[in-house]
């Protein structure tokens, strides 16, 4: 995947500001959308910013991208939990049964969530391995579309092939992912096809 290199992690450990900005650029958007699954979008932004400020101040010693990812997701997860639980204890919500039900469900979901480095390593590994299994052309299309965020017609233009061919290659890639990702597939498929 688009993992940050160990050199960058090393710079980050030395409290390099530029490296911090790179990490922010890479992880801020996805962490916000992650948190926004459990709290409001505005709250999510605040909680993720809190996590980044704390991250900079703590300057944890990290060894690789998976650990960095785990650290950030764990902080954001904890911040979300704190927010949800605080809301739970505030009386004004007690009569809103629907809201309470959702809040409780989100609290259990986040509590159960495994944000250890191993999880991210695993996901990264699965995707990496699958990528390696794709035929070269298929991989090329997939990377342009999925990781470089290009629209189908842009990919077609960049690689000088028809849009139909792009679609076909993406379908092919997804078929491969279907085998390796098994449990994850339905969601991954949504992610990949939603653009």
């Amino acid at each position, binding site marked *: 995947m688009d993992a940050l290199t160990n050199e960058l992690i090393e710079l980050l450990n030395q409290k390099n500001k530029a490296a911090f900005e790179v990490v922010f650029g890479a992880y801020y*958007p996805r962490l916000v*959308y992650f948190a926004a699954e459990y709290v409001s979008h505005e709250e999510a932004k605040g909680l993720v910013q809190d996590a980044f400020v704390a991250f900079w101040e703590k300057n944890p010693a990290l060894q690789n991208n998976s650990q960095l990812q785990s650290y950030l997701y764990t902080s954001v997860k904890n911040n979300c*939990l704190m927010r949800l639980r*605080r809301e739970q204890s505030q009386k004004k919500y007690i009569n809103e049964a629907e809201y309470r039900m959702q809040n409780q*469900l989100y609290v259990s*979901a986040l509590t159960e969530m495994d944000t250890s480095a191993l999880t991210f390593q695993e996901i990264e590994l699965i995707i990496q391995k699958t990528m390696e299994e794709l035929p070269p052309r298929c991989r090329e299309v997939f990377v342009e579309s999925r990781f470089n965020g290009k629209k189908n017609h842009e990919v077609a233009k960049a690689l000088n092939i028809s849009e139909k061919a792009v679609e076909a290659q993406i379908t092919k890639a997804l078929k491969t992912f279907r085998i390796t990702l098994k449990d994850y597939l339905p969601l991954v498929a949504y992610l990949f096809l939603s653009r």
Partner: protein
Amino acid sequence: MDKEKIIQKIVSPKGADDQHELLSWANNSTENKREYIRYKNLWAILQRGEEMPKQHVESDFKAVKARINSSSKRMLFMPALRYAAVFVVALFTGLLAHHLFLNIDISMNVVEVPKGNRTSISLPDGTQVWLSNGSKLTYPETFRGKSRDVELMGEAYFTVTHNADKPFFVKLGSHRVKVLGTEFSVLAYPNDSIIQVDLASGKVQLEVNTSTHGKSYYRSVALNPLQSLALNKLTGKLRRSRIPNNFYTYWQEGNYTFLDESFESLAQKIDRIYGVQLIFEDERIKQRTFSGAFNVDDNIYTIMEVFKSASQKPFSYRVEGKTIRIKSIN
């Protein structure tokens, strides 16, 4: 509801009715709930956030940068605590506190902090308490009567507001600490054999519950500043020493430093701080000692790597949910 429909609703919920249907389905059975949580979490983790406009990322980065630059003037204690994830249950139960409050029915607050977290609490008299790692503090809504009484299970740092007319008591099971306005920390987990009081400044005394001929009374032992006093609950023996070197860094920065501490004893701390249990697959490795430091906000994986690199004899570890199995390699 079938798989596809659940996912559809998680991925793109259409209005409140849709959300309601999904939530009640999830609450229908534990299996539904488990399935819902699995998809919900996975969907959240797989988010890429590519929808976010570049300008937003840039302006939010500026906001973070501004906060980082201004926080160099931060207060003592604040950095480690402000962002600590904290679960505080403030229960306003009308607990009848016979043992503490002479049969007066006073509404009690109970603050519990789960493992791996810390929080700060302001008591009604202005006293500040930093509560840490799976600890519990019980205190009344108002301090009536001749003394200020709180009850602690676990670990806390107190900055007690001075009031000579109303001494402050921290009840620790059958023992207690009497305070006259001061800064100190208490370590008193119910399952530990030791109660430890570290005094930073001011004056406190540990009052050891002693009984002779069926009568119980408190035996007072005073502490001087920068002293540490440990009571062995089993033998009743007291040990006086200098305040530990790691005292300030631990409470102010969340750094736990240790010198020649056994793996077994460190495992106990790790359990408290991270809620992760270390299981030693052979006896020898338990007795191995380590010197070093970790921060309570580090993740457990980082800590394990620290131990691995610090250990002279190699060991391997295996993570299984909330337990880690440790085995020496020979």
